[in-house]
Structure formats: C-alpha cells, structure tokens
C-alpha cells in the first residue's frame, strides 16, 4: 500500500524527480570513475616499480642504503651460492656505485648500475647492452633512460667521459657510448642512472662477483651476510603516498556525497513544503503521521533506486568505452611518479558494491531527515498550508 502510494507520488513529481535522479546518478558515476581510476593508477605505478626495480624483494648487502650514495662503495659483497643457484628469471644481480659523467664537459653525478644480462626478472630496455662482449673495448656501452637523456642532453650514439673509483679507491675514467635511450617507466631507475653490463662494471671496479643487492622473485629464507628487504619496505614511500591518495580521494568522495545528500534533502524539503495541504488532508482523514513519513521516505528510496538504474545505464557504456581508450598521463613524465603511459581504470567489484550501499544509505537518510518533522505537524495548519514556513 505504502509502496504503491510512494510510486504514484514519485512519478507525479515529474521533472523535479528526474533532475534529482540524474544528479545522483552522475555523482555515482563520478564516484566509481574516480575510485577506479585511482586504483588503476596505483596498480600500474606499483607494477612499474616492481617490474623495473623491486621484483619480489631485495637481498641487500648489509648496511647498503640507496639514500647514502657516499657509502655505496663500502657495501658490496660477493653473491652467495644460494642466490647464484636461483634461475635467471627469479633473480637479478645489481651492483650500484657512484660515478661522474661529463656530458658536454660538465660534471653530472650519476649512479652507475650494473645488472646481469642473463636476468629476466626485471623488465628493463637493456637489450642493446646484450650484444656487447664481456670484455670492454675502447668504449664502455651504457644505456640511459629518457628522462636522464633529456636532462643531460644525451642521445643514442653519443660518447662522453665517465669517471669512477675502483675498489681500492684509485680514480679511473673512460669514454662511454650511449647505445640506447630506453623508456624506463620508473624515474628511480632513470634519473641520474647509468646502466651498464654487470660484468663490465665488475671489471672496471675490480669487484669480481660482487653485488649491492640481488632482486628476487620470492623470499627464499635468510641468506648469510645479506639482509632481505621486502617489497613493502622497498616501496614504503610509494605506499605511504598511495595511502595519502586514498585519504584525499575520500575527501573528494565526501564532497560528492554531501552534494548528493544536499540535493536529495533539498528536494524532500521542497516536497513537504509544496505538499503540506496534501499531508494535512491525509492526517485529517486519519492517516498516521509515521505512515506519511514512511511514504515520503520511500519516495526518496525510489529516487535512489532510479539513480542506481540510470547510473548503470549511463555509466556502463562510458566505463566500457573508457577501458578501451584509457587516460593519457604523459604529462606526468616530469613528475617523480613511476608512471608515464596511459592508465586504465581498475574496477573493483566489492569496492563498487560498498560504495553503492553507502550511497543508498546516505540518500535514504537524506530523504528521511527532512520528512521526520511531519510527525510534529498540526493537521489544521497543514490544511491551510501554514504548518511549515
């Protein structure tokens, strides 16, 4: 009975109800889009960091800290047998040392990273290094990232001088040849980083068999003389950033929801004001005020249901289309975020369901709050249209 009255009342509201439904539906679409895009962004950025640097964690030389470049050379150790035995797809040996590059004869401090050419754990554009022999000829082949190349005005085929120290501390220098400028996707392995073959770097610095860390696919238990750094530790700064992003997105979410609630609340207020004579008549005819509240609240619920339906009808094609074209974030290439390519939304079903449930509850609450005052209305005043001023 209540339901059929509410349905009738709702359909008679016409444009007012339609606009209310449309605003709510668009807000729901915006909400899902925002959350999914953020999910997609974070997932792709995390994937880039894992694929290019972190892997499944690092077995690091004790005391090695990437933020203390002056101590890198003091923390290199021989790769232990247990890690050597891992398959090349499960490990990547990396040696990190300081160096000084002289592009256009200007000093540019760099991080020299040697990586084994046999590894396939980390996806880095270093194929052009593989064709060079283990022994160094006149020029040392190196690869730089696009950001590094842009900053230091380097391009493929350039030769320039690199200065470094060997294990004993003796200064050494030689010309390097830029054999490729690759898109690293991750600024951590791009800006200020010079990629070399591991065997070349070991030879240059008299560090036979030594590494700074071994990136592994999976944790294989404690390894003597090595410290394991899990992904969470290696990506702590990025994960903290993601958490902050989530908080920021919640603020946006709250703003959006407040707007929806205000819209629903406002519509209900207007409804009561315009329909006070109707409410007065119903009360005069003996209808319980609580029942009238129920009817009005049900009208609000109907608006929420229709909003979900419209959101589904409008949003679904939009989301399917957007999943195909993605969102171009090439403008982020100047930032330090590990993402440069087009990002695609990542729709999490449970997250969407939770969000919709919350939206529904908020709309129902927003519909109920203004109508609860009906219980306090004087029927005679309501009949004359003077109960609410």
């Amino acid at each position, binding site marked *: 009975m209540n339901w059929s009255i509410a349905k009738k009342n709702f359909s008679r509201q016409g444009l007012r109800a339609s606009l209310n439904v449309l605003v709510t539906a668009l807000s729901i679409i915006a909400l899902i889009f925002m959350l999914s895009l953020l999910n997609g962004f974070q997932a792709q950025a995390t994937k880039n960091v894992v694929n290019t640097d972190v892997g499944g964690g690092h077995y690091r030389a004790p005391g090695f800290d990437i933020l203390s*470049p*002056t*101590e890198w*050379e*003091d923390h290199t150790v021989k790769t232990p047998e247990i890690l050597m035995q891992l398959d090349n797809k499960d490990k990547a040996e990396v040696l990190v040392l*300081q160096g*000084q590059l*002289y592009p*256009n*004869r*200007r*000093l540019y401090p760099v991080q020299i990273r040697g990586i084994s050419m046999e590894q396939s754990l980390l996806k880095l554009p270093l194929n052009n290094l593989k064709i060079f022999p283990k022994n160094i000829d006149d020029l040392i082949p190196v690869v730089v990232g696009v950001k590094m190349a842009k900053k230091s005005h380097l391009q493929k085929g350039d030769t320039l*001088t690199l*200065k470094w*120290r*060997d294990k*004993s*501390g*003796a*200064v*050494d*220098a*030689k010309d390097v040849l830029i054999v490729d400028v690759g898109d690293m996707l991750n600024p951590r392995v791009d800006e200020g980083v010079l990629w070399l073959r591991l065997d070349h770097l070991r030879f240059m610095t008299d560090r036979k068999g030594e590494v700074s860390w071994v990136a592994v696919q999976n944790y294989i238990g404690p390894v003597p003389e090595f410290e394991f750094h899990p992904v969470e530790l290696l990506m702590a700064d990025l994960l903290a950033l993601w958490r902050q992003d989530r908080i920021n997105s919640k603020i946006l979410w709250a703003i959006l929801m407040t707007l929806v609630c205000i819209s629903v609340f406002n519509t209900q207020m207007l409804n009561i004001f315009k329909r006070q004579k109707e409410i007065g008549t119903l009360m005069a005819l003996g209808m319980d005020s609580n029942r009238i509240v129920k009817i009005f609240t049900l009208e609000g619920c109907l608006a929420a249901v229709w909003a979900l339906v419209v959101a589904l009808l409008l949003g679904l094609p939009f989301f399917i289309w957007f999943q195909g074209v993605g969102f171009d974030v090439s403008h982020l290439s100047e930032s330090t975020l590990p993402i440069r390519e087009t990002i695609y939304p990542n729709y999490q079903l449970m997250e969407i369901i939770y969000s919709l449930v919350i939206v529904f509850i908020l709309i129902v609450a927003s519909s109920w709050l203004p109508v609860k005052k009906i219980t306090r209305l004087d029927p005679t005043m309501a009949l004359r249209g003077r109960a609410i001023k």
Partner: protein
Amino acid sequence: MDRIYKVFLLSFFLFSLASSPLLKSSEAIDAQKLLEQVDDNLWSNTKFISGRLIVDNGRKIRTLTQDTWMEGIDRSYTHYKSPAREKGTKMLKVKGKLWMYTPRTDRKILIAGHLLRQSLMGSDLSYEDMMEDHKLSKSYSATFDSFANINKVRCAILNLTARDKKTTYQTRKVWVNPEDKTVLKEERFAKSGKLLKKILFEDYEIISDRKFPRTMVFKDLLKENTKTTYKFDIIEFDVEIPARYFSQSSLKR
C-alpha cells in the same frame, strides 16, 4: 777496403749513439733521485700559507682567501676569511679524516671516505686533492721519459707509477727542472691512462732557501673552461704551530 769501411761505419754509429742527447740525458738523470730532490725542496715539517683560491667555473670567478697551517702529511688546519659566504669556514685534517665547520650551520661535519672525492667549494680540486701533502718520492716510483722545454726551461719528464694500488692517481707525469729541482708542470692520469688533471707551477721564488711556486693552476681536463688558481701570498716554513690548531675545538666559533 770493405773491412775498413765496415769498421768506419760501426765507429760512426757508436759515436752517434754515445753523443745523442737522449742517451746522455738518461744517463745523467736518476729519476727517483731527482724526485727525492724535488721533495726535499718543497717539503718541510711545518708550513704556514696565506693564500687565495681563485675558482673560475667558466661563467663566474670566485676568490676565496684562506690561511693554512700544515704539519707533516697528517695534519692541517685551514681558515677561510672571504668571501662573506665562506667566511669563518674552517677545515681540520687529521690523518685520513677531514672535519669542516661552517658558521652558518654552526655544525662541524666529518668529511671522510667517499665524500673526500667531492669538489672543494666548486673548484677543480677535490677535498682529497687539497688535503694531499705527501712526498711523491715515497708514494711513486719514478722513471725518466724524455726532455721537453717549458717556457724555454729544459725539463726532465718523469713518469710516476704509484707503489700502492690505493693511491688516488695511479700514474702521474711531472716536468722537473733538473737544475733547480723544481716542478713546472704535472699531469695526473686515471688508471686507464686518461688524462684527468693538469697542474702548472708558476712564479717560483726563493723563500727560506727553498724555491717555492707562488702560483699553482689546477685544471680539471674533463670539464670545459674551468680552472682553479691557488696563489700563495705568504709562505713560512718550519713555523711553530700551537697544538690547539689541530684539535677539534679549533673548529668552534
């Protein structure tokens, strides 16, 4: 006749060889001894130097004035007097460690290990270069290369090879005037043989019975259009240096 001709040719060849400047010089030059004599000329137990470090980075020239007290190879203390930005900066070297005090931060920082390889106040010298005060004859073994003229002065070129693989520059080349045992030019090489730095020693003067250069010009050859000139305005040898100069308390304001 043929035999006489052969004997004549052989005699001529031997005479030419014996009289060639190369052979004569190499016989005359004992590279290691010459290097020791160079050290003896320059070396003293204690030194006081008041000088200017003129840093030309190709775009701007900065002049830093400083007073330095040095004792042996292990200890030195430098006080920067100008420009305003660097005024009051102090550096204390004790053995392999270097402490730096900057009045702006009111902190003393230990510059050790790899930090020593960084450029000293944007100059062509590293902290390590600046701290370096060891006897070349002790650290390097010298061999004679050839003679060459520098500003019409005939110099013996000595090739120096480090005795220890920990020595920063594994090879050097020095141009020494054998007459007065002074160095006019020095080149420092990377392990690979690449030339890294060139140093010119100019304006030699006799100070306390030693011939000492008033000016040293450092050039980092990997950089373009940069040079650092170290001018010694006052040099005193074998001076009394109070022990407190080489204690960390000297770094305090």
